[in-house]
């Protein structure tokens, strides 16, 4: 995947966590994610359309999700409930929206977010887009940014 597409998502995640959670994010090496590989326990998903198309996922371990949302909302969250889903949705919304604005010369729009809860769930992103997982870690635990996006004029990518 084009580095110019990946970089804005990493930059925006750093900014989001620093601004609203006062957390530093440590980012690992992006790697291709196999189509049937599971995400973490809680995934916020947003679609992007226009000059860049695909999906953006912010996926958290359960413990990371509850700790991050507790910080974000300012109240203790101990279970995977509607309030947690709402907060995770807003976090992925801010990552997608912030990154979209940095995609130079690209005219895009984003959807409203959806949230999936469940251990070992798989987010299917379509057969012609390679998914790149960017491992992240912060003082609340591990999470990942999963990008299955391509420029609209790019040829279909091989998943092999």
């Amino acid at each position: 995947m084009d580095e110019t597409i990946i970089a804005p998502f990493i930059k925006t995640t750093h900014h989001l966590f620093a601004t609203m959670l006062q957390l530093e994010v440590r980012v690992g090496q992006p790697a291709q994610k196999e189509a049937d590989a599971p995400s973490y326990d809680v995934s916020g998903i947003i679609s992007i359309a226009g000059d860049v198309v695909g999906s953006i996922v912010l996926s958290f371990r359960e413990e990371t999700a509850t700790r991050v949302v507790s910080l974000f909302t300012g109240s203790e969250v101990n279970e995977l409930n509607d309030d947690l889903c709402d907060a995770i949705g807003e976090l992925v919304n801010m990552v997608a929206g912030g990154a979209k604005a940095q995609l130079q010369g690209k005219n895009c729009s984003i959807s409203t977010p959806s949230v999936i809860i469940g251990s070992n769930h798989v987010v299917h992103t379509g057969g012609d887009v390679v998914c790149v997982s960017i491992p992240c870690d912060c003082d609340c635990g591990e999470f990942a940014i999963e990008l299955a996006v391509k420029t609209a004029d790019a040829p279909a990518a091989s998943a092999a």
Partner: protein
Amino acid sequence: MRILLIDDSKTMRNIQRSILTQMGHTEIEEACDGLDALSKVGGFKPDLLLVDWNMPNMDGLSFVKEYRGQGNKSPIIMVTTEAEKSRVIEAIKAGVNNYVVKPFTPDVLSQRIEETLARTAAA
């Protein structure tokens, strides 16, 4: 001072409500999208509106156009992830008075609210 918060995220409404409460504002109403907001503006008569852009049913920009089209003059602050300059211009043309890009710190939101109210009072 009656303030209407329009955002489909309950989390974001709670964060904004908390900041407004710390600023001393207590008359706060909430709406979860543009349609919900339109149904509430007649009865609540807000003096200030904080409006998200991307929402289901009716987005923030459509709400602003509809609200202004009804002749309402109360100041509107767009609070959104839409950060492109073209989006900001589009919002201002539709009748938005000020703009806050998410994510924001409490200080930034407070400052924009105060400057918007000051500008309105001076007009």
